C-alpha cells in the first residue's frame, strides 16, 4: 500500500485535489481516505458517496489536529490494509501553518492557493520545507506573471520542491501529480514510519487545560510578546 499525506491551509483546495486523484486513479487503485479535522468534517461522507471508496474521519476536538493525526496514523495504515487499499490518502485539517505532517515511507503533498498572497509560502514554510510536491491551485484566476512570482516565493522556501500548477476543479495539470503518486514506493514497514520533522511542540500548561492568559501563569515552553525567537529554518 502507498501512503500520501495531503496538507495545506484551510480552503486551499486539498479536497478538490484529493477528488481529482481519486477520479483519475480509482480504476487502477483501491483507494482509502482519512480526513483529520478539528470540530466537524464532511469530506469522508462526500467522497464515500461519490466514489464508493472506504473513507473515514477523526476529529481532534481539544487536541492539536496534527498531533491527533500522528496518534492515529498507525491505526489508519492498519485500517487501509484491512480494507485492501493500494493507496491511503490522508488529508490534514490544515489548521496551523506550523504543521508538517509528512512521514517517512509516504508521499508529502502540500496544497496551496495561487490567490492566497505573495507572502503565504513564507508563512507556511514548515509545510513546504518537508513536502515532496506542491500543488498550486486556482491558477486559472491569475495571469502568467503572478504564477511565476508565486512560484519564486515557494522556491525561496524549498528550492528542490516539485511544483504542479492546477485548476483542481477542472483537473488541469494533475497528470504530473498522478505520476508522482504512481511512482512513489509502497510502505515497507509500517512500524518503522516516523515523522519527517519535529512536530510543533505541545508541552506548555495550556496543553493540559490551564486557561489563564499571560506567560507568567504558565510553565514549560512559554512565549513572551517581546523577543520570542522561534524562526523556523526547515530541516
Amino acid at each position, binding site marked *: 500500500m502507498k501512503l500520501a499525506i495531503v496538507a495545506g491551509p484551510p480552503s486551499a483546495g486539498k479536497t478538490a485535489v484529493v477528488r481529482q486523484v481519486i477520479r483519475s486513479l480509482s480504476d487502477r487503485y483501491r483507494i482509502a481516505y482519512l480526513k483529520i479535522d478539528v470540530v466537524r468534517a464532511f469530506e469522508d461522507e462526500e467522497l464515500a458517496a461519490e466514489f464508493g471508496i472506504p473513507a473515514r474521519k477523526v476529529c481532534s476536538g481539544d487536541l492539536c489536529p496534527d498531533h491527533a493525526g500522528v496518534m492515529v496514523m498507525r491505526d489508519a495504515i492498519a485500517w487501509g490494509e484491512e480494507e485492501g487499499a493500494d493507496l491511503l490518502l490522508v488529508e490534514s485539517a490544515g489548521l496551523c501553518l506550523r504543521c508538517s505532517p509528512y512521514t517517512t515511507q509516504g508521499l508529502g503533498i502540500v496544497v496551496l492557493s495561487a490567490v492566497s498572497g505573495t507572502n503565504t509560502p513564507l508563512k507556511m514554510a514548515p509545510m513546504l520545507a518537508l513536502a515532496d510536491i506542491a500543488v498550486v491551485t486556482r491558477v486559472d484566476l491569475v495571469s502568467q506573471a503572478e504564477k*511565476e512570482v508565486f512560484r519564486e516565493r515557494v522556491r525561496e522556501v524549498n528550492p528542490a520542491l516539485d511544483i504542479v500548477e492546477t485548476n483542481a476543479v477542472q483537473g488541469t495539470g494533475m*497528470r504530473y501529480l498522478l505520476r508522482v503518486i504512481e511512482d512513489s514506493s509502497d510502505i515497507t514497514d509500517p512500524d518503522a514510519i516516523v515523522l519527517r520533522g519535529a512536530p510543533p511542540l505541545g508541552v506548555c500548561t495550556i496543553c493540559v487545560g490551564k486557561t489563564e492568559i499571560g506567560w507568567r501563569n504558565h510553565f514549560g515552553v512559554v512565549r513572551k510578546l517581546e523577543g520570542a525567537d522561534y524562526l523556523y529554518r526547515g530541516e
Partner: protein
Amino acid sequence: MDRTPIREITILPGRGRHGEPEGFDAITIRPGDTVSIVGPTGSGKSAFINDIEVFAQNDTATGRTVLVNGAYPPEEFVRDPAHKPVALITQNTRCFADLTVEEFLAMHVRSRRIEEDGIVDRTINLANEFTGEEIRSCARMTALSGGQTRSLLVADAVLVAAAPVLLLDEVENAGIFKERVIEVLRAGGKAVIFVTHDPLISLLSARRIVMRDGAVEKVIEPDGRENDALREARRLDGILHCMRERIRAGDLVTGRVGV
C-alpha cells in the same frame, strides 16, 4: 535565454459538451498570427485558450490535444515558466500579489534570471501606453484598477515573460487602449489569441474561431472581405473612445462627437 523556436502550435479536436466530436481537423497558429475566439457566454471560449495554456493532452474536459512544432511539447514547456512559450492574461482584473508594482516586476525579472538594466521601468512605461490612468512604481499591486492591472500584465508578458504566444481573455473589458495593445503585439511578432466579445478586436484578427456548446463550430478567414466592416468598427470605436474619455473627465457630452 535559449529557447527552442516555436514554429507552430497545433490544436487537435476534442469533444463538445454533449460528447459530439468537433468539426475541424487541426487549427495551426504561427508567430505573427492574430486569432479571435468568439461565441456566446458559456460556449467554451475560455476553455479553448486554457487548453492551449496547459498544453492539453486529451486530459482536460474538452479532450483536445495541443502540439508544439508538430509534436507533444517537452515537459519543461508546460511546467517550467522560464521555458513556457505561452502567457495567459486572465479575465481576472485583480492581482493578489501583496507587493508594490516595482517589487512585483523585480521579482518576476529575478525569477526569469534576466539581467537587463531598466527592464522594470520599461515595462511600467509600456503599460502606461495601454492605460489612461498612470501606473506608478510605488503603487501596490492589489490597489491597481482593473485597467491598470491588465495593462501591466500585458506589458509584463511582452517584455519580461517574453512569451511568443499570448492568450488574452476579454482584454477589452478593463477599459484599456486595445488598438495600441494589438499594435505592440503585432510589431513584436507574437502570436496572439483573443477571447473577445468586441467587434473591433474580432475584425482586427486575421482569423476567427466560432465556439458553440463547448466545441469549435467553425473557423472563418475573412481575407479582406470584412474591410468595410472593419473601417466602420474603427470609426464607431473612435466615437465611443472620445465619448468615454469626455464622460470620464466629467464633461457634458453635447453636439456631434468624432467623425
